[in-house]
């Protein structure tokens, strides 16, 4: 590459595009040899049901404590498959680059994507690259699609929660959202907060091994946070869920930052957390399995399904009070005083 910046010509389909693909993108993401490059990837035959997901990543800033838009895109896609009980097989990557993006930044993002894919054990098999004029995009947008294989006998759904199910989470909430917000806004008070972005497919496999069909619901509480995700599950399943405020793990940094900014950590985004609803008799096994996994060391039971009802989520507060938890309305905004 002669240029240190992405130029409009890199999206032209001509010589510069081929240079970008051949020199930078394909070697970094997949290493597919030129003779194997065709208009579509060909996947091996897969026995059984497939899971198929897509997502688009537009995070600002693209680099933040604990990760960047690249590993976020891969981890997020892997996790969407894993939350359906699927073993990830292949991922596609669509890159929308803004004219003027430093090539070094692109390389760093691509390297993180490859590393995240290798860690999760999934291959990036196809993709696309476009360049938009300066000001028409925001450095880099990434669209992904993922295909996964669902092993026989797995039935995971947000509508499968049952009364008395226990609600588990694999660690502290709000780290990703607060790390990005702090990085974007230059908030110095949150220097020690890092994104929790990570692939959760290994943890999910351990949960299936420990619980089998006693594992009823899996969901990663990304945008909207734990509160919005549990409201979705309660609504889908027609149950009430009651959380214990004191049981919800929270890092000291996120707790302090939320207190100062007037934000509720239950509504702050996560990228390396999952909520698992399991039958009560399997809850301890699930908890032990989670805690044995690196992504679940701080796993805990945070509540339970209390009734078949119309989809409420309630919180037993630390001092013994009870309050409702609604879905996030719009964006969480810092308060005035």
């Amino acid at each position, binding site marked *: 590459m002669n240029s240190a910046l992405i130029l409009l010509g890199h999206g032209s389909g001509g010589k510069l595009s081929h240079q970008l693909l051949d020199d930078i993108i394909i070697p970094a993401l997949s290493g597919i040899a030129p003779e194997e490059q065709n208009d579509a990837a060909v996947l091996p035959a897969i026995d059984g049901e497939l899971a198929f997901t897509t997502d688009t990543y537009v995070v600002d800033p693209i680099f933040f404590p604990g990760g960047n838009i690249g590993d976020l895109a891969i981890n997020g896609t892997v996790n969407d498959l894993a939350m359906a009980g699927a073993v990830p097989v292949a991922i596609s990557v669509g890159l929308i680059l803004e004219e003027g993006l430093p090539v070094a930044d692109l390389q760093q993002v691509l390297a993180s994507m490859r590393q995240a894919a290798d860690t999760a054990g999934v291959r990036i098999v196809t993709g696309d690259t476009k360049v938009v004029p300066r000001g028409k995009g925001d450095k880099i947008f990434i669209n992904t699609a993922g295909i996964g294989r669902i092993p026989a006998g797995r039935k995971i759904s947000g509508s499968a929660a049952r009364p008395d199910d226990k609600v588990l989470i694999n660690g502290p909430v709000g780290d990703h959202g607060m790390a990005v917000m702090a990085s974007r*806004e230059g*908030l110095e008070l949150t220097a020690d907060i890092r994104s929790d972005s990570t692939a959760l497919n290994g943890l999910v496999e351990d949960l299936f091994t420990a619980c089998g069909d006693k594992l009823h619901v899996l969901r990663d509480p990304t945008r909207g946070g734990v509160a919005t995700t549990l409201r979705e599950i309660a609504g889908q399943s027609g149950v009430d869920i009651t959380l214990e405020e*004191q049981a919800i793990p929270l890092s*000291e*940094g996120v*707790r*302090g930052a939320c*207190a100062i*900014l*007037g934000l*509720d950590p239950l509504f702050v985004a996560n990228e390396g957390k999952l909520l698992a609803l399991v039958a009560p008799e399997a809850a301890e096994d699930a908890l032990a399995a989670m805690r044995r996994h690196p992504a679940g060391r701080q796993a805990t039971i945070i509540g339970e399904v209390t009734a078949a009802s119309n989809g*409420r989520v*309630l*919180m*037993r*507060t*630390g*001092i*013994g*009070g*009870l*309050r*409702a*938890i*609604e879905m996030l*309305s*719009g964006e969480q*905004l*810092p*308060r*005035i*005083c």
Partner: protein
Amino acid sequence: MKSQDLTTAYRDPAVARALLRQIETTVRNYRRQMTLMEVCGTHTMAIYQHGIRALLPEQIRLISGPGCPVCVTPVDYVDRAVALARRPGTIITTFGDMVRVPGSSSSLLREQAAGADIRIVYSPLDAIAIAACNPGKEVVFLGVGFETTTPTVAGAVLAAEKQGLTNFSVLGSHKTMPAPMMALTSDPELQVDGYLCPAHVSAIIGADAYRPIVEACRVPCVVTGFEPLDVLRGVLMLARQVVEGRAEVENEYSRVVRPDGNPKARQILETVFEPCDARWRGIGVIPGSGLRIRNSHAAFNAELKLPVEVEEPVEHKGCLCGEILKGKVRPGDCPLFRKICTPEDPVGACMVSSEGTCAAEYKYGNI
């Protein structure tokens, strides 16, 4: 002290249970219902967030007052901010709560979608930095808030003056706290037996600022912090005063609030601002309850510096925000609540702010 210690020390369930027992014992033989008003929006949120109302004995009724700065900001202020946002070459800077407040025909959020340059900041000093980076544009900061935030706005004006910035100004709607409490105690339709006085405001103005209320109106005042144990202690102290027929200023939040407050902050405030009459949404004009920029700093007063045509203010018919702000009705009494007025599409300001009574009831009250 670590930030975790700052909160967990005031959330101990055993201490909460002990305080609740003391409150029950205090009011056990009290035959009337006592109405205690939390004046501050952050108290309202704390009460809902921790589920405190349902833990109290039935003799104690907690009602919310006019202490959310966004909620009491009149609609014509929002209309003026919208008109300024439409002015070419203007950047509006504001705390997040304000962008969703509906004006007569628009809101800042809608103007942003239509192309206006509106930026959420965390401090008025952020607005100064934006002004320094955009010399060709006028940067207007929306100065809304009580004594808690006004000193920081004054500090920003002084900083802008020191830096020689000529493209920064403040559209002010600053208010002060004891005045509306006095006004509410003289409302014949409202019987307030005691006030939980705001924590942040009191840190600036001091606990002594409430003496005129207890002396003139015989209403007990307890300056109270925001943690759940603070609120329970504040309720206990108020309940004891009411049962014993006392009316005094007591300070539950003495770890932060001094009798004379923060003189340095007040001095900065008084350098830039002077008292004025102010209109409170739902209450009307309260003499001497506002703060406006002094003539000596008129160059930073957006209202004088940037004349714009402002539409005729229109309040939504049926919205009971005014009555809710005075504690006369509850959100559920409003015909619009949860039906037409929701956080996604708020009609009244009480539903907009994260500290508004209706927003708190919507978010936490559906149990």
